[in-house]
């Protein structure tokens, strides 16, 4: 087709392309995208629609995650007069009491009150089922927004678990953008990011309509969904799924859980969760360790005070001999993985919060019904860190 087109152009206007033609065409294409950015209206994402922005603790904090599939990922707030905190984590940082949901970062933010005379405001980089590589992408985005304090929750079930190092692949563009420099960031990015992720993110920087592509794509699909060359069949039935079709409907995590030798049908929910924790401990995933170390390196390079923490699992699970043993082993592996990664600004206690937070009711293995005991411990730790770093804090006494 290209050959036919070139032959026609040559016969019509005598056009013969050269190497420089490609350069000029690329420049004209970029120019076209820039002009499109000036002409097409901008549609910045709206993170305020997150239901977690209407729960307890969200008064002076905001979940800044954009809807799933939006490759912009997060929309940090802009409060130049506030002391700005960025907090990254998954559902382990929610309070899930029925009828009284809450967000731990927001509750801690309210107790911190003010730092250096400025009210604290927390941007919460939260997604359900956030895995370690997603968390790294969120950390890259968070440090680009230049917070004054960065807090990162490491879910004990997933931090070293090779069953799922990534859940939300649409964040890979953010990972690519945050991994341009230094070269030590490249191995993790190269392991996950596709050329398409990197290319679209690069074009997003050139042209607003590419950056806003979820909005325009949804609009486009809405207008064209009914267009089809196929005949409509009244009363047609979908054929039953094939084996591969059934497989495609399962999440990767569930697939591997079913095929790792567990007698799944006879195990209780608690046993399954314990097995998931154990999987993280026995997998000894070098890639998880590498992603974790990249997260620490990102925080160090950003020069921002950073507090990593390991939340507690449910007290009933910890009371089981196997649960206690796995937590002990997890601590050991995390201590080894993060050796030399901390400094006076970037802190992490591999012992985690397990023995420091008084036992509190959980909905399940990792989701707390009452988050306040953890909130008190976290508030105390962050106050101590800020004071050690020379800040004046208005913290409530823990």
């Amino acid at each position, binding site marked *: 087709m290209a050959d036919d087109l070139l032959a026609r152009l040559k016969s019509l206007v005598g056009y013969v392309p050269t190497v420089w033609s490609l350069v000029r065409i690329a420049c*004209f294409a970029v120019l076209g995208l820039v002009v499109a950015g000036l002409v097409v209206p901008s549609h910045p994402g709206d993170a305020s629609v997150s239901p977690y922005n209407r729960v307890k603790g969200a008064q002076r904090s905001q979940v800044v995650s954009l809807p799933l599939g939006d490759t912009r990922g997060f929309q940090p707030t802009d409060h130049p007069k506030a002391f700005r905190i960025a907090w990254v984590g998954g559902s382990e940082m929610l309070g899930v009491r029925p009828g009284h949901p809450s967000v731990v970062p927001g509750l801690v933010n309210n107790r911190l009150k003010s730092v250096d005379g400025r009210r604290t405001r927390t941007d919460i980089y939260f997604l*359900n089922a956030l895995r370690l590589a997603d968390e790294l992408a969120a950390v890259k985005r968070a440090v680009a927004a230049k917070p004054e304090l960065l807090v990162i929750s490491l879910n004990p079930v997933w931090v070293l678990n090779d069953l799922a190092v990534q859940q939300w692949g649409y964040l890979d563009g953010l990972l690519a953008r945050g991994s341009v420099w230094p070269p030590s960031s490249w191995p993790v990015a190269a392991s996950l990011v596709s050329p398409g992720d990197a290319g679209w993110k690069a074009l997003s920087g050139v042209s607003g*309509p590419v950056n806003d592509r979820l909005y325009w794509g949804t609009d486009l699909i809405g207008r064209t969904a009914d267009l089809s060359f196929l005949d409509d069949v009244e009363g047609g039935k979908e054929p039953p799924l094939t084996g591969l079709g059934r497989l495609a409907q399962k999440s990767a995590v569930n697939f591997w859980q079913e095929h790792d030798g567990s007698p799944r049908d006879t195990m209780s929910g608690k046993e399954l969760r314990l097995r998931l924790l154990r999987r993280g401990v026995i997998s000894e995933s070098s890639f998880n360790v590498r992603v974790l170390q990249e997260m620490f390196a990102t925080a160090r390079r950003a020069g921002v005070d950073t507090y990593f923490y390991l939340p507690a699992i449910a007290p009933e699970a910890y009371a089981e001999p196997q649960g206690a043993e796995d937590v002990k082993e997890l601590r050991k592996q995390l201590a080894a993985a993060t050796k030399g990664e901390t400094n006076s600004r970037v802190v992490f206690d591999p012992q985690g919060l397990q023995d420091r937070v008084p036992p509190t009711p959980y909905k399940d293995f990792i989701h707390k019904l009452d988050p306040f005991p953890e909130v008190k411990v976290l508030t105390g730790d962050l106050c101590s860190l800020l004071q050690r770093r020379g800040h004046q804090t208005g913290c409530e006494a823990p």
Partner: protein
Amino acid sequence: MSDATDKQPEGRFSGLAARLTVELVIGLGLAAVLLLVAWASSSAIKFVYGGY
């Protein structure tokens, strides 16, 4: 364009103008295709919720 053509050697200018016009059209067409692909592929991202 015809005035300018009168002032320049016929073959050279018309060749350059035609060349740039062709490349401009191809470049802008490429930009339009890129935009359409970006939009059309944006909601093609498939989600499988890990559930935990």
